[in-house]
């Protein structure tokens, strides 16, 4: 396990804000000497504001900056204020925290990453930090516009599940071709890049997972709860399911 340096309430300077959609952006700031393990999160707030929120680290472990993926929430206090910061401003950062990490032996096994919305953030970090992971990523979004930085993932490892955008499916470069392989199980890490209509849980129901797969889930509580049951039904042991709940 990597050694982590605790940086309590550091005040790094903002480098840039990169807008991905009208409501979602990547905030980049100084890393200082913060060490972390891919999958961990930091608590971030506007300088001088008592409120802070937790965000998984989006940037790779060897980058000399830190990035977080933020969705601006209606009525949200922190996400809206963070969007108004400017390069050179200071933000408050505490951390790293969390245990949503991949143990070294598991990095050599087939992995299934399942995300909804900004829950893709830790997987973006995993993919950028570990060059030889054997993973497949299911990303559940409402519309094609929410495919945050999908070009950061090898196209043959990614399936997008579009829950409210059937036109988006048709427009995707590759229409779904993720049929089960001969033994009836999805070939984790080998299917084509695709976009399919429906939720990630719909996809999981139709595409059995090899019981030896380590499954990492990040997103809203209801999706994870439902996916747990489906994956256990496919024979994945509970101790091989890892979750990071986003609220």
């Amino acid at each position: 396990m990597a050694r982590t340096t605790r940086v309590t309430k550091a005040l790094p300077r903002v480098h840039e804000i990169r807008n991905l959609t009208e409501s979602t952006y990547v905030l980049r700031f100084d890393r200082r000497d913060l060490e972390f393990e891919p999958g961990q999160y930091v608590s971030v707030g506007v300088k001088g504001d008592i409120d802070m929120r937790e965000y998984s680290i989006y940037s790779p472990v060897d980058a000399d900056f830190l990035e977080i993926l933020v969705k601006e929430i209606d009525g949200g206090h922190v996400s809206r204020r963070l969007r108004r910061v400017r390069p050179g401003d200071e933000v408050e950062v505490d951390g790293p925290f969390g245990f949503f990490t991949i143990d070294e032996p598991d990095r050599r096994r087939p992995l299934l990453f399942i995300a909804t919305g900004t829950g893709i953030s830790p997987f973006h970090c995993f993919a950028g930090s570990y060059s030889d992971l054997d993973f497949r990523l299911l990303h559940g979004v409402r519309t094609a516009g929410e495919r945050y930085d999908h070009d950061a993932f090898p196209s043959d490892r990614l399936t997008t599940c579009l829950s409210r955008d059937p036109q988006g499916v048709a427009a995707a470069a590759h229409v779904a071709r993720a049929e089960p392989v001969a033994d009836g199980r999805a070939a984790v890490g080998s299917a084509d890049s695709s976009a399919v209509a429906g939720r990630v849980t719909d996809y999981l129901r139709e595409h059995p997972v090899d019981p030896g797969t380590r499954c990492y889930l990040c997103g809203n509580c209801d999706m994870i709860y439902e996916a747990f049951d489906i994956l256990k039904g496919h024979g994945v042991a509970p101790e091989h399911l890892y979750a990071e709940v986003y609220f």
Partner: protein
Amino acid sequence: MGGARSVAFADLGCKLNQFETESIATQLQEKGYRIIEFDAPADAYVVNTCTVTNRADRKSRNLFNRARRATQAAQAAAELSAEPAAGTPLVVLTGCFVNSHRDELESDGRTYIIANEQKHSIPALVDAHFRGEVVHPAGNVFDFPVAKRIFHTRTTVKVQDGCDNFCSFCIIPSVRGRAVSRSSRDVVAAVAEAVTAGAREIVLTGVNMSRYRDGGVDFTGLVEACLELPGQSSGHPGERDYRLRISSLEPDGLADRFIRLFEHPRMAPHLHLCLQSGSQRMLLAMRRQYTYEEYRRLAADLRSIDPTFNITTDLLVGFPSEEDDDFAASLAAIDEIGFGHVHTFPYSPREGTRAERMRGQVPSRVKTERSAAVRTAADAAKRRYRESLLGSRERLLVERAERRDGTLVLTGLGEHYVPISVRLPARVGEHARASADPPPRYENTFLEARIESLGEGDDPVLHGSPG
């Protein structure tokens, strides 16, 4: 020198708080202070608070106000005399309530507000106050010497503080700080010191011990080291060794190696494993780090080593969005796991936690009803568990020996953390009374007891006989 000044203590909340209170009391006793009941007039009152629920906040305030009222008259008299504050009665407020309410609490010359990080310095602060001196706190959260048995028979050793889990309902990471592990060398030395001093049961405590790590030593490795110390013998029958107990533990990150610890004869077959909910949906919303199935498997593994292994727990009811089905799952878990004791508490929002902002807050009336239902189920489960010990042998650590109806009755806890009462045969009691030899000391000794019956009430005592 403190002379004959007296100090009264009150504490709330977790085992860690209890230990810290006892350690502070031990240090003040060694400085010459008398430790007295909280209701008695004292020169100093130390209130070690808790903030885990709204109820804990209220209790903390009440104790603080009681201590202030108790010192009020003496303080007023001192002010009229225009004497310096040194020597006037003193109130020390410390603990997690202090850390969560810093803005509304103010220190003055006779009321000291001490955050958790400086709690270890309270003995020096109290002593300096009565000397008219000022001390500057130094040290760290592990600077609590091994406590003498002032309030409890068991001796507690602090191994860890703080928590990084950030469960969505919990304020503890904010008030106890980030997880920090005491060096394994210091822990083992503290346990050895306690054993050498005659402790028969040592309790390892911390906020989140399952995440303990000191270099390459994890919690299992730490416990292994604590189990292999030479025992002490006083020559008294049964008093030949020590046993090790683990206090509250989070049920995550515990591998098979940890389970096997309980094959060691010195390990007490009891764990307080905080479940919080039997509903997987609620566990996710609480941001707990385990599934219910993992918990159930852990319980089964422990019971494979000892079928009567005592598993106790905490259950949180009325968490935001908890539906009837979720609550039913918690009730079902009480029976399925077969808990020996359930500590239940209704959810109350803690400022700054994620759950405070969650939708679906459950009405107070529903939380009250669910709490009552849990208590009923938990009482029944506790009785069933204790009935399962009938006919077995328990190793009682005697906490009290008292004469009742002409015979000597020994009470204390068995290795399964159950209350046991043993009435000694009349001739043994007679010998104790009539012999010219000094009567045998039973307190803090082990006694093998055959469990024969179970008492009544919601915390029924097991009754047994020696043998």
